[in-house]
Structure formats: C-alpha cells, structure tokens
C-alpha cells in the first residue's frame, strides 16, 4: 500500500517536475512567471492524441508501437518548442524593457488565448487517448508497477539528468547561467542574450510537451483546461524548490507528487489539490526562498 502510493507519487511528481523546470528556467532568466507554460503542456497532451491517431491511421502503430510512441513524443516536443519560441517572440520580447507587470499580464493573455484556441479547434469535451498498454506491468518488491508508470519515471529521470548536464557542461548551458546572473555582462562578453532566452523557452516547452504526452497516456483523458491545474501545481513545485533553481524544480515536483499521493490515500482524497499548498506554505515559512533557493535578501 505505502509502496504503491510512493510509485504513484513518483509518477505524478516526475510530471510536475518536468513542467516545473520550464517555469523555473524562464523565471531564472527573465524573472517572469510564464503563465502560458501550462498551456504548452496541454497542447503537448493534445498533440499526443492527434499524432497517435495519425500514425495509427497510416498503419505505423500496427508495425511498431515503440517507434510510433517515440515519433509522437519527438514531434510533439518539436511542435511545442515552436509554440514556446513564438510565444516568447510575440508576447514577451517586445515588453523586455517595460515594467515588470506588463509581461505578466501578457502571459495571462497568452494563456487565455491558447486555451480558447484549443477549445475552438478541438472542442470543449474530453478527448480520449487510446489505451495501448492494457494493464501490463511487473512486480516490484511487494507492489505492481505498470509499464506506463515505469516509462514515465524513467523518461522523466533521463530528461532531468540530461538537462542538468546540458546546463552545467555545455557552452550554451553555461551561457544560460551567465544570462540568468547578469544579462548586460553576458552581452558585453559576446553572448547573444535574445538567442539564449529563445533557447530557454524552446527547452522548457519541449520538456512540458513530453510531460503532456505522458499524462495523456496515463490518465487517458485530455481537455483544454488541464494546463491550468497542472500549471499551478508545477509552479507551486518550482516555488517549493526555490524558483530559479533547476534541481529545486526537480525536487519540488517529486516532493509535491509524493505529498499528493500519500495525502490522498492516508488522509483524504477530497483535499488532494490542497496538500500542495499546505506544504508550500509550511516550507516558505521556514525557508522563504524555497528549498534550493537563496533567501530573497541574498538575491543578486
């Protein structure tokens, strides 16, 4: 029972973590809460369904399911990255030198726009992700893990490790950290700051879209509103971990998933959505900057 809830929590938490990374990376660089990020995740979930239906109709799914899923995930990530790129260029870049409130309002506007855009083009009712995996799974210690859960945990883990390596080791990753610390100085060293910001949106959107496809497969149902709740949860996870911190977002996401899952089974599932905020308030009282964040007064 406990182990089962931990596995469920890890699954959910991995997804929160993937989405939270996009919030935290953008905040780290622009000090902007990208409210439209949850919508990118939602579009990723829709693309999962649409692309899968397409590949099924051309017969690819029957030939090789793993290949099809790989294609779905990669294409969804590419398309969502293009959305993220475009949103930044159209809605945030023109406001780069405006007051801090303007891009925030713009972000809310983009979020509402994208929700309605999907509702109008895809309909207001739930869409179904076909059940491809049946009830397949394996025994793990004293509990059962479905293949899908295992896949979500492993894929998320691999993506998080890759992201961390990218940010810490590559030239572009180091430039991202430099831009987050001092944009003017970065530009004085020859770093194209606009390009680095675009890359941040592209990477964050890609991660969110993978989360979207995986959640669509996991829950089987998608509607135009799922980005809202997931966005709030993931944002909470990012704040919990210390907004701006990449390890913080990973850790915060997983912690949140575990809290929700354990709270729902041991306390009451009715308040499932409230546990996240109880934990958030608790942690911020003790560490105002979040678990991995710097205390606000130390912020440079």
């Amino acid at each position, binding site marked *: 029972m406990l182990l089962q809830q931990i596995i469920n929590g890890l699954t959910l938490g991995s997804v929160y973590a993937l989405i939270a990374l996009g919030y935290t990376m953008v905040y780290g660089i622009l000090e902007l809460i990208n409210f439209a990020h949850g919508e990118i995740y939602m579009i990723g979930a829709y693309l999962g369904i649409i692309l899968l239906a397409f590949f099924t109709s051309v017969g690819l799914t029957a030939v090789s399911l793993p290949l099809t899923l790989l294609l779905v995930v990669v294409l969804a990530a590419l398309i969502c990255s293009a959305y993220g790129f475009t949103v930044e260029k159209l809605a945030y870049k023109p406001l780069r030198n405006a007051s801090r409130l303007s891009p925030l309002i713009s972000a809310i506007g983009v979020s509402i726009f994208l929700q309605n855009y999907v509702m109008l083009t895809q309909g207001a009712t739930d869409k179904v992700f076909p059940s491809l995996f049946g009830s397949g799974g394996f025994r793990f210690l004293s509990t059962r893990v479905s293949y899908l859960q295992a896949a979500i945990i492993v894929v998320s883990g691999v993506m998080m490790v890759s992201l961390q390596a990218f940010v810490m080791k590559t*030239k572009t990753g*180091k*430039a991202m*950290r*430099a831009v987050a*610390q*001092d944009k*003017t*100085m*970065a*530009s*004085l*060293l*020859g*770093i*194209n*700051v606009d390009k680095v910001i675009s890359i941040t949106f592209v990477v964050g959107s890609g991660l969110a879209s993978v989360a979207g496809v995986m959640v669509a497969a996991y829950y089987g149902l998608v509607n135009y509103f799922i980005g809202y709740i997931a966005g709030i949860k993931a944002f909470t996870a990012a704040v919990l971990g210390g907004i701006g911190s990449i390890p913080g977002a990973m850790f915060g996401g997983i912690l949140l998933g575990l809290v929700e899952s354990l709270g729902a089974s041991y306390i009451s599932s009715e308040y499932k959505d409230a546990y996240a905020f109880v934990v958030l308030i608790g942690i911020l009282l003790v560490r105002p900057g979040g678990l991995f964040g710097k205390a606000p007064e130390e912020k*440079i």
Partner: protein
Amino acid sequence: MLKLEAVRTRYGPIEALRGIDLTISKGEIVSLIGSNGAGKSTCLMTISGVLKPSSGRIELHGEDIAVLPPHRIVERGVSQAPEGRRIFPRLTVKENLEMGAFPGRGSFPEQIENVFRLFPILKERSRQYGGTLSGGEQQMLAIGRALMARPEILLLDEPSLGLAPIMVSRIFRTIEEINREGMTVLLVEQNARAALRLSHRGYVLESGAITLQGSSEALLGNEKVKQAYLGE
C-alpha cells in the same frame, strides 16, 4: 582605429553624453578622466553597444558599429571590463573565463594560458565560484575575462575602484604589460594621476562633454587638471 564623432547618449530625458569626439589609435593607452556622474561609464557602454547613441557615429576601422548589438561589437574586437567588475558570482573562475571566450576569436587553451600567465592567482582559483574571490582577484578576473575574447581594443572602467594601493599598482602594471604586448586600451579612471602616468593621451570629461584633451604629460601639467583632478 576607434573613432567617436559627436556622440550623444540619453537616459530618457537626461542627456548624459552631449556630443563626444574621441579617437584612439592602435597601440595607445588613452585615459578618460572625470568626476562622478561625468558620463565616463555611459561613454564605454555606448561604445560597447549596450546603450544606443541618439546621434553621432562610432567607427571601428571605418565601419559604423553604433548600429550593432553588443555581441556583434565584441565579435569585432572590442571588449570591456565594466565598472563594478560584474563577475558571475555563481559561475566558477574557469567558467567566467570561458564566457569571455564566447565569441571564439582565439584558441581557448592559448587564451587561458595567456590570462593565467598575467594573473597566476586565477589558475589557483579556477574551480572556485567567482563570488568567493576578493575584490582584487575579481578585478583580475574581470580583465582576464575581457582578454579571453582576444580583443583589439580593451575598455577598462575604473579598474582601481575599491582596491588597496598595492593591488592598484599591480593592476596598473599589468595594463602596461598587455599594452606593451600590443593591446590598445581605453582606460576610464577617477584616479587621474595614476591613469595619466600610465597613458599616452588623455581626455577630460565634464558633465557629458570633453573639456580638455592632449598628451598625458601636458594634462598632468595643466593647472585646471591639477586643481580639479590631482588635488594640488
């Protein structure tokens, strides 16, 4: 090599540079002196493209660079170690230097060897976070980082600011050394005496306009300069 013609720069309604003319030839050290708020940093930030002049021309080898974004100006060989050093505190010393090499104008191993030769302490500190360095070490890192791009001209904004006298002379000796090796330097300083002793020529900036210019020797002997900037 670098030429400013009637450059004006404003912050909103405030005009901080009111038509600056300035030239720097290859191999020179030129100092730009002036009191607080005269517009020295504004001048360097305008050359680097962080601020855009409202009118006037900035030519590098005859090309107007005033229209280019900052990273393109660095790519053309103009590097700046800005006021306050602006070390990335949560990047290591080595990573700070790597960022300096971002435009890829030289070979990285060669450039970093060169910087470690000028500032051996940076080699010892290379795995430490930039934010943990002392003020003097940070200034060395700031200059070293600017050199990593293998610039043709180096803009230095108050490299002596806040440093102990021994560190100031250390920094100034290094500036002299890199100049002897061929680097062109535009040196902004409040420490007018030290700057003029080091440089070949100098400009005096007062509330956004150049009021005096000439050989450093002449400026060191000028009565007005003596009174206003050398405290004599």
